[in-house]
């Protein structure tokens, strides 16, 4: 939370920020235009993270307040995909009927943050905050989802990893997340070891009817790491062990190291596989 000025650490405060113009666009088009034209635009949704970011030195030129963009609120099923508006709060998203189209997602989403945060924090803000400890990118990675951006240059779809790399077009707005509803797509999210580690497992069938699976392991300080599973075997422990052999040695968290992540990750994955099998049966 410090700004490292040339001579040292300064305890930054939101009181350091000089007043700025605020634009409250009434439609996505207006918002995109504002993002294109305004001086140093910063989108603003639920505000649960921006305040911390400001203290860490994020400047605000013009604040683009997204509150009126009702189009970006809510979860829908569209064209065989789950479409999550960027402004959907965690509380709304977890409670939405549409979310239940991916079994396990409502339960997972309802665990992100505590009630005060869930009532204001949005799915889009969670991703765009680009914090390794925020979990939307873990879920989205596991479910093979895409984040859709709108800017004056047009639309763009990015993976969560690309968002971490700041690969979205400049001055763009996250509008929605989409999750293709592959056959039998379902999720298990294990947070029992948070904040040391959390793990998502998505299972589905591909076009050829083969069982597919993806495990995503994430820690407080490391970006989510996805492992495509080989589900050919039947023994959950063997599948999990094989999967975690693939975890690179460099995936080592300052709080827990690599060795533990391998072992605990494999143990959790084996249980997730068993749990999901039981749920299906």
């Amino acid at each position: 939370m410090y700004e490292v000025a040339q001579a040292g650490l300064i305890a930054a405060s939101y009181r350091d920020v000089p007043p700025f113009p605020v634009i409250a666009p009434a439609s996505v088009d207006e918002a995109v235009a504002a993002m294109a034209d305004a001086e140093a635009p910063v989108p603003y949704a639920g505000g649960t993270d921006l305040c911390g970011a400001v203290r860490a030195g994020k400047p605000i030129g013009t604040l683009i307040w997204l509150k009126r963009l009702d189009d970006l609120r809510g979860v829908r099923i569209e064209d065989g995909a789950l479409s999550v508006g960027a402004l959907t709060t965690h509380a709304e998203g977890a409670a939405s009927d549409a979310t239940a189209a991916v079994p396990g997602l409502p339960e997972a989403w309802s665990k992100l943050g505590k009630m005060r945060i869930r009532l204001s924090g949005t799915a889009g803000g969670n991703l765009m905050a680009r914090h390794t400890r925020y979990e939307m990118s873990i879920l989205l990675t596991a479910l093979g989802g895409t984040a859709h951006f709108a800017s004056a240059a047009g639309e763009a779809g990015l993976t969560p990893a690309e968002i971490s790399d700041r690969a979205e077009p400049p001055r763009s707005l996250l509008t929605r997340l989409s999750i293709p509803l592959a056959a039998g797509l379902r999720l298990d999210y294990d947070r029992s070891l948070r904040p040391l580690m959390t793990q998502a497992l998505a299972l589905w069938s591909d076009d050829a009817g083969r069982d597919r699976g993806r495990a995503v392991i994430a820690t407080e300080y490391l970006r989510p790491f996805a492992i495509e599973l080989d589900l050919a075997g039947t023994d959950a422990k063997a599948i999990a062990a094989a999967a975690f052999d693939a975890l690179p040695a460099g995936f080592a968290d300052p709080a827990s190291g690599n060795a533990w992540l391998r072992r605990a990750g494999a143990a959790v994955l084996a249980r997730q596989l068993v749990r999901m099998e039981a749920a299906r049966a």
Partner: protein
Amino acid sequence: MTEAPLRNIGRPDRRIDAGEKVSGRAVYTTDIDLPGMLHAKVLRSPHGHARIVSIDASAARAMPGVHAVLTRDETAAIPMPVYGYFIKDQPIVATDKVRYEGDIVAAVAAEDEGTANRALAAIRVEYEPQPVVTDLERASDPDAAELFEEPPVGIVPKYGQGASGELRPRRNVCYRFSYETGPADAFDECDHVFEDVFRFSRMHHFHLEPFVCVADWSRKDRIELWTSCQNPFPLRKEIARIFGLAENRIAVRVPYIGGGFGSKNGCKTEPVALALSRLAGRPVRFCLTLEEGFLTNTQHAAILKVKTGVMQDGMLVARKSEILLDSGAYSDGSPLVAEKAGYRIPGPYRYRRIETDCYCVMTNTAPAGPFRGFGGTQTSWACESQIDMIAHRLGIDPYDMRRKNLIDLGEPFVPGESGMDSDLRAGLDLVVRELGYRRRGGLEDDGPVKRGMGLAIGFKDGGGVNKPALARVKVSTGGDIFLQCGTAEIGQGAHTALSAVVAERLGADRSRVRYMPVDTDHTPFDQGTNASSAISVMGQAVDRAALAARAQILDFAAGVLDCPAEELDLADWEIRRGNEAHPLAPMIMGHFGGTGWEFVGEGFHKAENSHAAPLEAPCVFWEIGWGGAQVAVDTETGLVTVEKLFVTGDAGRAIHPLVCRGQDEGAALMGLSQALFERMIYDGSRLVNGDALTYRVPLADDLPEDFRSVTQEQGHGPGPFGAKGMGEGGMLPVASAIANAIHDAVGVRITELPLSPERVLAALAAKDGG
């Protein structure tokens, strides 16, 4: 005195601060606002250890809205610009060197915080980085960089039988405390000698109200200071020394304190704010951010090497300990914590020989200081873990091992000390019953999840060392009661408990008592709100003050009624004599005239000095926290879930039961989070998680399913109505009880905190491997 039932003691009625605190009206230092007040901010070192080559603050000084800039150039004019408890080593702002990331280099007072921060960003500092010292065990190596090349001014207090202290005994050690008693050859007689090493993590107090003060030194010969500080009188003395001002020119006022847990002792924000106020000629508010709190004061990480000699039957004979406390970059309260850690490491057991050395090791990290438990948390962790380890090695149940060696009620802890004032076995048996410890063999496992139970007894001396306290009770013509004493209300409920004592003695309802604001200009002297001393030490002074006021009132009435005072009683501001009731107000005005009168009683307390006692005065009371835990250990992930946590303290007499309960439970939860996850993570000299989002403190859903406390009232305390202090005991046993439970569940011993999944899993792997 009558035997009437007590009307104010032991009742769970509303605390006296309840109305103000639930309505938002309570005033804290953060709320103080003076006309013309400026805001201070500081520039902190980005280096763990560096020489300061140059500081150029000219651009900052020239900025509009900036009223004062403080660097080493300005502090050079201050008579003694360094502070600390035993050792005056911490400069107001850095002079020759910076010694940790976060060390204060410069300060600015400006119209608002934003302007102050912009001015700080304009200051240029040239540093010459030095090698950092962060490893406790290597800090004294001959090639380690030195934090202090020149010895700072320091003192070693007078110690009694068996105790000694030394300044700078070796490189990068600012203080050593040692204690020994009993025959030196006692280890020779032991059947077994076990040596184990324990590591203790470091937490931040994480009090919600930040470090904050408002300092007004706009007039040359008068300081007025509002501060969130636990010990206003020692602070006044320190400020007088630093700035060369008479103590009667300095008023220190302490509004409600929003939590401290030990951190808010001694100089913190005050010297910077005062120096800026003098320079600017205006009042200055200096409020740290929560992140800066991490850089201001912390608990002591520690390495404890404990060697214990026992007989085959489990009888303890001798213990030799070496403790390294990570004191950070400045001594702060470290020497005092070293005294206590060094003194408490034997735990509540009987030995023939005790031998301890405790070292305050300086490192290039944030200064460590007092923290709830004050060394006792570190020592209880080591002691209570090792008792279990030894029991297992000898094939004895840990419960039996403890029972066999516990000090008896009334038995001195060590020669020259006061007697144990709790029945230790009774407390232990209570835990065993509440936890169902004897049935633990029947706990069911759940596949890879194994269950177990553990016990521990946390132990510390309470009431401070050689601590004086003074109190005054005034009663007006109408029977309105004023209580004046220096105990700050930091959440512990002291104002409620002390007011209840006064009301009880004066036969009044507690609502008749007003606890007067703490202000060193008016409040009688007190050494500080610490060491669980409010009831045990200040309580005795308050009790005497109330009894003195009562005696005056009865004497006065006896004169008026022309009878012996012994025939009279006082209740509801009437004098009772047999069946007669004489209202006091008319009696007082009849004698003193219509303007009335105030009765004033004073009370003093201090433990007798005694050179036979190792710390020069016998301990006021023994603070014991008994605890027990049931855990479920996931052998595949290492996750430890605490399913049951039970703690119990002995309040002697619970003046206010809910206050006692809250103290034990709050302390226990701190112990739980330290045991499982809470810690400051350092990477070299850099703090990795020094902010509210990544530094994890417990939330309501971290509470174990079954979390309970019981307040025992064994009745042996020295305080009013048999009360003892509370507030720290509940924290002490928790980590070791959980570690012991983990061992019970899966047979591995973790000797380092926190008891994190990766440590548990690594220990399980090591066990399976060999």
